[in-house]
Structure formats: C-alpha cells, structure tokens
C-alpha cells in the first residue's frame, strides 16, 4: 500500500512539471513510460502493476488538474482546455489570473469528488447497462454530435448595414471558415489514419503532431505576434464562489466530461460544449468551474472506467496504453484506481496555488511574448524529438488549418474534424470507400 501511495505521489509530482510545459500531452508521456516498461520487460526485469498503475493514474489525474495553469496563464491550451482559455485569459488581462486559475482548479477538485464518491460507486452497476444499450448505436450518436457542432455555430458578423447578400456573406465568413476548418482537418485525419506518416515505432504518437498544430501552436503564435502586455496580477485570499455555483458547475461539467469519457471519440472539448448548451449556464464562474470539472471527469474518468468491474471500458489514449501493459479484472484494481485518483486529485489541488503563484512570478519577470516564443520552442522541440521531421511537417500543415478559426473568429472545436470525420465514416462503414476515393488505399 505504501509503495502504491508513493507511486501515486511520484506520478502527481512529475505531472506538476509536465503540466507546466505547454503543449505536452500526458498521453505522450504515458506512451514513453510504456515503452520504458516494455524495454524493462525485454531485459528480463518487470515492474509491479501495483506500482506503475498508481503512477500512471497519478500522472493523468495530476496533469488533468494542473494543466489549467499553462492553458490560462501561458495561453497554450490543449483540446480539452480551449473553452477555458477565453474567460481564463480575460481574468488574466484584468489582473485576476490567479483567481481564474484557482476557480477552474476548484472545479477540478469537484470533478475528483464526483468521480470518487458519485460516479465511482454507481459505475460498475449502471454503466454496463448503458453500454449494452448504446453499443450498436455509437455511429449515429457520433454523426449527430458532428451535426450539432456544425449547425450551432453562431454567425458573428452581418449585424450592420442594409439587408441583402453583403450582410449574409459578412455573417457567413465565420460560419464558412468553421465548415472549412472541419472538412480540412477531417481530410488530414483521413490521411493520418490511412497513410500514417509517423514510423511504426512511434505509431501511438501518430495524432500528436496534428493536435499540437491544430490547437497549441496557433495560440502561441498569436500570443507571440500580438505582443500582449499582461497587467499586474493580484493574488486573492478567497474565491468569489459559493456552494450553489459549485453545485451547478459540477452538474454541467460532470455531464459533459462523463459523456466524453463514456462515448468513443467524443473529447472533453465536445463534452464541455454539449454540457454548456444543455445546462444553459451564463455565469462565467460557473462556465470556468464546469470546464475544470469536465476536464478531470473526461481524462481521469475515462481511465477510471477502464478499471470498473463489469465494464472495463477502453476510452482515451491512457486506457489504451495501460491495456497493453495490464488487464484489470478485480474489485481490488478498481479500489486501487479510486484511491489513487482521490490522493492524486487532493495533492494536485494543494499544489495548484503555489504553482500558479510561481507561474505568475515568471510572467512578471519575463516578457509574455518571450514566454509564448519559449512555449512554442518547447512544443516544436517535443514534436521533433518524438516524431521527427515527418511529425514537424504534419504539425505545420495542422497549424495552417488551426489558424483558420483563430483568424476568422470561428469555433476552434471544428479542428476536431481530424478525429470525428474519419472515425464517424469508419463506424458507418463508408470510411474505406472515401479513403479509396481520396487515393489513400493505393
């Protein structure tokens, strides 16, 4: 038990440093850890699952709580955090970056609470039934989600001037850019799925350069070019939230994150979008906290469900990586997972305040533009180290697509076409004909 606790803490502490590095996804680190474990096994050594599983859970939980810091303060969000960036950066720009980050952190803590005390006890009993009923219907659920993403983008222009085509085209410039982004990223997804450009050894990192290019790089580039001046930051003693706000955030975020953790290909960003619409919450504080809840429930919850007896659901990269190493089969595994999540979540939240203060000090000392350029450098270096020149090329193409919504003011979630389109087509059995039409099967 002590070794398991030590492993959780080690994973959480490592996640602290990894979370601060912008652009680095925890699944990439888990993939590298898995490679290390395979090499140990190949050398005749073996690590105990009671050690490396809590370590991995600590990594994921710690990262899903703490990656709010670079998302908000350094402007380098991953896909699940893109919604928190706008309100979060707004808080940063009025000197309340600490408050904004801690608010999302409070949401993350509520997410950990939900996972361990609400979802955890009920998941093994009820979720197998849900999976049994929905399993043959996953394909149309995915198509319906795609239709929702594409149909609910709000036209931002066309508010002035006489009625007619000019007004229409003004409004549709953002909507058109959104549609273009979705279909271009979908094409990129087809390419990556049917003609993987990254070497077989790095196959589990196939999608990483595309995600970095679509989500992280455009934001860093804009920050670096715009030369944003961050105002003086204030560290508050209390957060302007109460139990009612936290409850409403937990419901909204829990539903969004839970939906994303349970259904294939649905990511935390999509879950957050759906939950935001469904619960119709306008308060920015609820919005930010709910995104904190959603992020933790999505990343950590997906991994937790992998250990749930009677379910053993494989959703998300983390579960896939662990599946290659270990197959859970007992309630003991589940309790180990729940305990690891609880411990790591609590420690991560306690670390959130000092790490946020440290990052704010960094922003005060170093020019924000330099931080953005440094972040950009780290991201590019990581992509190069993990996937080589080919990965850099994919990242560059993806950056071009990822810049479209940033420049036209459309929804960045459209970039998720990279996953949604090819996988929805495959699930409906039309993936291969389309790939053949695109010349990807020759």
């Amino acid at each position, binding site marked *: 038990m002590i070794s398991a606790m030590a492993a959780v803490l080690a994973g959480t502490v490592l996640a602290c440093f990894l979370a601060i590095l912008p652009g680095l996804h925890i699944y990439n680190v888990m993939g590298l850890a898995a490679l290390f474990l395979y090499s140990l096994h190949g050398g005749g050594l073996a690590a105990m699952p009671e050690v490396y599983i809590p370590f991995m859970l600590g990594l994921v939980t710690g990262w899903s709580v703490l990656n709010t810091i670079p998302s908000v303060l350094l402007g380098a969000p991953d896909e699940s955090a893109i919604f928190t960036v*706008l309100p979060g950066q*707004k808080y940063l720009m009025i000197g309340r970056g600490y408050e904004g980050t801690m608010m999302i952190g409070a949401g993350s803590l509520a997410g950990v609470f939900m996972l361990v005390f609400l979802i955890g006890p009920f998941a093994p009993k*009820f979720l197998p*039934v*849900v999976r*049994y*009923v*929905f399993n*043959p*219907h996953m*394909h*149309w659920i995915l*198509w*319906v989600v795609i*239709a*929702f993403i594409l*149909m*609910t983008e*709000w*036209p*931002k222009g*066309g*508010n*002035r001037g*006489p*009625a*007619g085509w000019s*007004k*229409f085209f003004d*409004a*549709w410039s953002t*909507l058109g850019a959104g549609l273009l982004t979705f279909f271009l990223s979908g094409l990129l997804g087809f390419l990556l799925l049917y003609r993987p450009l990254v070497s077989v050894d790095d196959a589990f990192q196939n999608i990483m350069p595309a995600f970095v290019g679509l989500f992280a790089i455009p934001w860093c580039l804009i920050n670096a070019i715009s030369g944003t001046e961050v105002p003086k930051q204030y560290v508050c003693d209390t957060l302007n939230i*109460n*139990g*009612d*706000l936290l*409850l*409403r955030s937990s*419901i909204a975020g829990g539903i969004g994150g839970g939906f994303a953790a349970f259904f294939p290909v649905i990511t935390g960003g999509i879950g957050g979008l*759906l939950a935001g*619409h*469904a*619960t*119709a*919450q*306008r*308060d*920015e504080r609820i*919005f930010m906290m709910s995104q904190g809840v959603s992020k933790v429930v999505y990343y950590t919850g997906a991994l937790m469900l992998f250990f749930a007896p009677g379910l053993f659901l494989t959703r998300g990269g983390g579960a896939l990586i662990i599946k290659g190493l270990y197959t859970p089969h007992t309630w003991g595994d589940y309790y180990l997972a729940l305990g690891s999540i609880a411990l790591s979540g609590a420690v991560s939240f306690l670390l959130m305040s000092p790490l946020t203060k440290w990052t704010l000090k960094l922003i005060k000392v170093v020019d924000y533009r330099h931080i953005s350029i440094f972040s950009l450098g780290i991201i590019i270096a990581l992509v190069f180290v993990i996937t080589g020149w080919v990965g850099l090329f994919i990242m560059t193409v993806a950056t071009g697509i990822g810049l479209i919504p940033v420049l036209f003011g459309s929804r960045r979630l459209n970039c998720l076409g990279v996953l949604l389109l090819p996988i929805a087509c495959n699930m*409906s*059995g039309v993936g291969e004909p389309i790939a053949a039409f695109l010349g990807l099967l020759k």
Partner: protein
Amino acid sequence: MKGIAHFISGVTVASFCPWAVEAAQNGNPAFFILGAVAGILPDTIDFKFYRFFYHHEVSVEPNPSQLDPQLIADAVAAAIAEAVATGCPVCVKLATIRIGADNWRQYRVKIDPDAGEVRVQFGPVVSTGQVPQPGTLPATRPVGLAKLSVPILQSYEPIYTIDIFDGPSFKFTRNEAGQVEIDFLPWHRNWSHSLTFGLLLAGLTSLWTWQAGVVVFGAHVLHVIEDQMGHMGTNLLPPFTKKRMPGLKIMHSGDAFPNFGCVWLCCLLIFWNLYAAIPEPLYHFSFIRLMLYTMIIPFSVFGVVRWLLVRADKGHPETLSTEWNI
C-alpha cells in the same frame, strides 16, 4: 427553447420510429441525423439565413462614446408615429453596441402601453455570455423618454434588453382599431416555424422515403410545440394565418432548468426506445424504474442540496442582474 433542446428533441422523435432504430442497428444513421437537423432547422433558417435578408426601414445605431438614451427613445417613437401616419408597417432595428472583442454595452427599451411612452436606459458592459462586468455601469444613468400619441398593443413583453451580437427588431403596424401593434423580431418564428412549412419539408423528404417524411414532420412539429411554451408564440399556418399565435408563457427560451430538463428527458426517452428495440435484452427494467433512478431521484436530490446550499448562503440564489429603473 435553446438549440440543443430542439436538436435532441428531433433525435428523440426519430428514436420513436421503429424503422429509424432498425436502420441505425444496421449501420444507417440517416433517420437520426434527419431528425436532429429537422429539429433545429427552423431556428437555423431564421438566424443564419432569413434575418440577413429582412429589410428594416429604420436602424438605430447608438454612439458608444456618447450614450444618449433620448435619441433612441425619440427614434422608436418617431417610427411608431410614421406607422400611424402612413398606415404602412415600419420595421425598426436597434443595434447592439460592441465595445471590445468580448464586451458589449447593454441597454433597455421599455415600450409601455399603459403609460403610452417609450423609455430607454443604458446599463453595464456585459460579456458575450451576457454577464455584467463589475464597475461598468455609467456614472449617471438618465432615462430617455418619448411620449406616444396612439394606443399600443404588445404581443410580447414590454421591456427589451439589447446587448450581444445582433440587436432586436420590431415591426410597428397600425390596425383597424387605430392601435399600433408591436411585432417583436418579425423575421423570427414566422413561416419557418409553421406547420405548413413542416408539411412542405416532410413532403420533400418523402421523395426519398415516407419514413423520412414522418421523422422530419415529427421533429418540426415538436419544435413548434416547444416554442409555443414560451412568450412569443409562432405563426402556425401561413399563408392562411398572418400573425403569431401567442405562446403559453410557461417559460423563457433561455431558462436553464426547463432547457436542461427537456434535454435530459429526451436522452432518457432515446435510451428507453433503444432498449425497447432490443429483442431479448440481457438486462430487465421498467420505464418507471428508469425514470425513478435517472430523473426523479437525481432531480430531487439536486433540489434539496441546492436548497440547503442557498439557505446556507444567506437564502438567496445568486443571480446576474442589474438595477434598472426604467
């Protein structure tokens, strides 16, 4: 109701159709996609197409650096007077005031039929989420006031809040009794939200298969019924009817609880319909048990917990409101 409620309602309609579930089980998602699209289509037509082509005789664009409510009140009163004088409908659009990437100056217009006047007042700066930003109320907040010379007939609420994206529009029409009728958002919930248009859409999709027509018509009708729960109502049978039938005023379209309740109920109905379509299910439960475990108990627990939390926090739920005295 909000878009997602209409959208999921359309999916729910499809789930009630055995042929849609059977097709989905065989890998064909078309009926469910059709239901979802038809569910949200009336609003898509209005907000993404029709409103850009709708002509306004008067467009009121307040100056962000010189907030003068009197100019707005006078412009609205003048438009009403013009409708009376000419006998022709006059459409007025009140523009929003954008003052940053995510910030808008909020203002309110009250067309008061009892007092026979238009009152206008500026409010705080709000975010695109319509959240007031602290410390942004103007130091002085005079009320612009213009008297009306004719009786007014309201079909919606008397107070209009103008803040984000596109501002509202009104059509002022003199009726036979000499009153001026106010038609709020004349381009919205009109022909696109009618049963006749639903029939037309269903007829078109029936060219593919009649089952598709049933799904589309059901989703469209449910949209109309849901909207009829609100204040504005819909024009049900154009070209035979010209005006919107007043709504039941049970809720506002943006209310959180009815929207979430609708979405959640739809999810449960979809789940039940998919379960009921399984020939020999592995698990057995009744509809009542499903609703008890997934709606009645969780909603009751939420209500009690929220009540306790609000009570612990001085007894008032926190709201995002602004003091108005118009």
